[in-house]
């Protein structure tokens, strides 16, 4: 009994420690600028206002930034998972020569720190004439995600029973039909988990957006949040409000796909 109470108290404290910064940001987002300026960021709130949300939404143009983010994130997730599942299907279900090498090669790209590719990517995107377009950003995200997604899906598809595919072959299904009618439906748990993960990764990206995009009105939400910071002085309350707004889509995706998130972590853990 005492142990259980002690456990809950201790875990409650740990959870509070973890949630505290988020709560703190939410509290700041409802404080007025004069309150923050006069009493400091760390003090207890002396004011309550919704105007921070209004200025984040309107002055910082967060609405447009969110649209940009979704315009990038949704196609990038669909495209990278689509391509990765086709690649994984081929590599996992057919004895393609050098398939181990291909897979390792794809994974190798993920082991490189992305920072060293910043300049080559920015120059290359410029060379092909797609600098400062959302298409470039989608392409970059697809390219970077592909290796890892293929690797994970490959592991998952490889473990699907061989007999199912054989039965489908006997029934006269070709590789395309087997992929779309048999393998893909069976891979759904893995796809959902990866979809949820990749959504948050792409949505929260800052590095690539500022590398390939130059115009303020094309910036996704993460650089737009950075734009709320002034040269010297920043309205932390508005930034906090903007952050809360920007977190809504990822939180929504998380709540919707909550169980896949946990499932996603265990993919490939048990062979």
């Amino acid at each position, binding site marked *: 009994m005492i142990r259980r109470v002690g456990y809950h108290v201790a875990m409650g404290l740990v959870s509070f420690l973890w949630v*505290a*910064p*988020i709560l*703190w*940001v939410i509290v*700041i987002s409802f404080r007025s*600028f*004069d309150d*923050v*300026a*006069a*009493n*400091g*960021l*760390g003090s207890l709130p002396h004011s309550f206002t919704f105007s921070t949300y209004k*200025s984040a939404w309107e*002055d*910082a143009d967060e609405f447009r930034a969110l649209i940009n983010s979704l315009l990038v994130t949704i196609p990038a997730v669909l495209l990278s998972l689509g391509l990765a599942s086709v690649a994984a299907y081929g590599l996992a279900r057919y004895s393609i020569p050098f398939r181990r090498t291909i897979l390792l090669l794809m994974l190798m790209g993920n082991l490189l720190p992305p*920072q060293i590719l*910043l*300049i080559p990517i*920015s*120059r*290359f995107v*410029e*060379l*092909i*004439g797609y*600098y400062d377009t959302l298409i470039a950003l989608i392409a970059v995200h697809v390219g970077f995600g592909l290796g890892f997604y293929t690797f994970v899906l490959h592991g998952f598809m490889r473990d699907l029973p061989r007999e199912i595919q054989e039965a489908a072959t006997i029934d006269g299904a070709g590789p395309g039909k087997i992929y779309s009618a048999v393998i893909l439906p069976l891979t759904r748990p893995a796809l959902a988990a990866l979809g949820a993960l990749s959504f948050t990764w792409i949505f929260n990206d*800052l*590095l690539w957006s*500022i590398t390939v995009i*130059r*115009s*303020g*009105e094309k*910036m996704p939400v993460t*650089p737009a949040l*950075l*734009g*709320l*910071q*002034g*040269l*010297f*002085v*920043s*309205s*932390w309350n*508005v930034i906090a409000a903007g952050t809360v707004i920007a977190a809504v889509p990822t939180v929504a995706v998380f709540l919707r796909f909550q169980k896949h998130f946990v499932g996603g972590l265990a993919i490939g853990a048990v062979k």
Partner: protein
Amino acid sequence: MTGLAMPLSDRRTFLKGLGVLGAATLVPGCATSSKSPGSGSAPTGQVALQSNLSSEQAKAAMEKLVAAYNKTGGSQVKLNTVASEIFRTQLPTYLTSANPPDVYTWYAGSVADSYAKKDLLLDVSSVWDSMGNYSKAMQTLSTSSAGQKIFVPTSYYWWGMFYRKSNFAKWGVTPPKTWDEFVAVCKTIQGKGIPPIGIGLGDTPWVASAWFDYLNIRINGAPFHRQLLAGQGNFTDPKVKAVFTKWREVLPYFDPKGKSFPFQEATSALLAGKTGMFLIGTFFADSAPKDALDDIDFFQFPIIDPAVPVAEEAPTDGYFASKKVQDVDGVKKFLSWLATAEAQEIYVQNSSGTAIPANPDGKSADTPLVQKGKAMIEGAAEITQFFNRDSSDALQPTADAALTKFLDKPDQIDKILKDWQAAAEKVFKA
């Protein structure tokens, strides 16, 4: 505190890395001019203005400024505002790209010159033909080491020792003029149990450079300061050590908490009466509640050696243009317009109002504070800007490291200066 500070510092270090990469694009080998097909046709009558003025008020002021120009006819200007932090790290990339934006907001002096040295900036000497009334100091700041005009200054601000009038009255002190008076004021304020000198170095360590700059130009004079920052001096020079000896006299009066919070929090501390004075640039006023602004005043950094000609720090902002601009006439026309008193008044009136037009005919805000600041700068025999602007963005971190260490361990000054010199040499050789 840590909640927000942690991801922030992560972002900082990350952006710093990005900045290094951005700088790397300046290395000739990397700066291959990639030609983008399909963008070959010259944009007719459009000037792209890349602005780092991303704070709410400044952004709005820029929009008004551009709208006013576009009404005058000629090439239409398209304003593109990006976050200042992104702008800072991406500027080298912008300038070296195949199809760069035309005009940029940036700083005068050696920072602009560092890009001119790499042949990335447009020669705007012809724009200066209509700028005869600008001061000699402005001209010097806008001239590259190759002797070309590469910069159009539009506004400047000043640094000073800011305080709350009501608090000074309460403590019974008056603004000091000399170093001895200053130390006496510090003693009095400390006697009331208040840390006399506020500072904010967490996340904004560059604020300490203001103290170094001012002590150096007060003790050794502006020419020595400039030479030192240009790499022609030596940080182990006894004259530099004298700066720190003087600094140690007032070190006990610094707010001990100042190392942990950024300058914006230090401003809050000053306004709340938790510190007495604060050496800072006028931009801090943007972070003050409006009702406190009337109570704010400043005094000139105390005179230490009356024999040294008085110099003040006045960082100058303005514009430069990329060498690759296509609509050269349109860009020059726009820059000429930006140099007019009319344009600068539009900006000053709509921004936070502490900036002073660079054009001597431009009217600054009519508040006593701004008038006093303007008079101080105009009365100065010499003008410096700020550590990074008088040297380079690469030298600033060496100063941050040295000065932060000095504030922590003033006894080790000899070693600190030796390390600083070594770090600076690396920067100058690069």
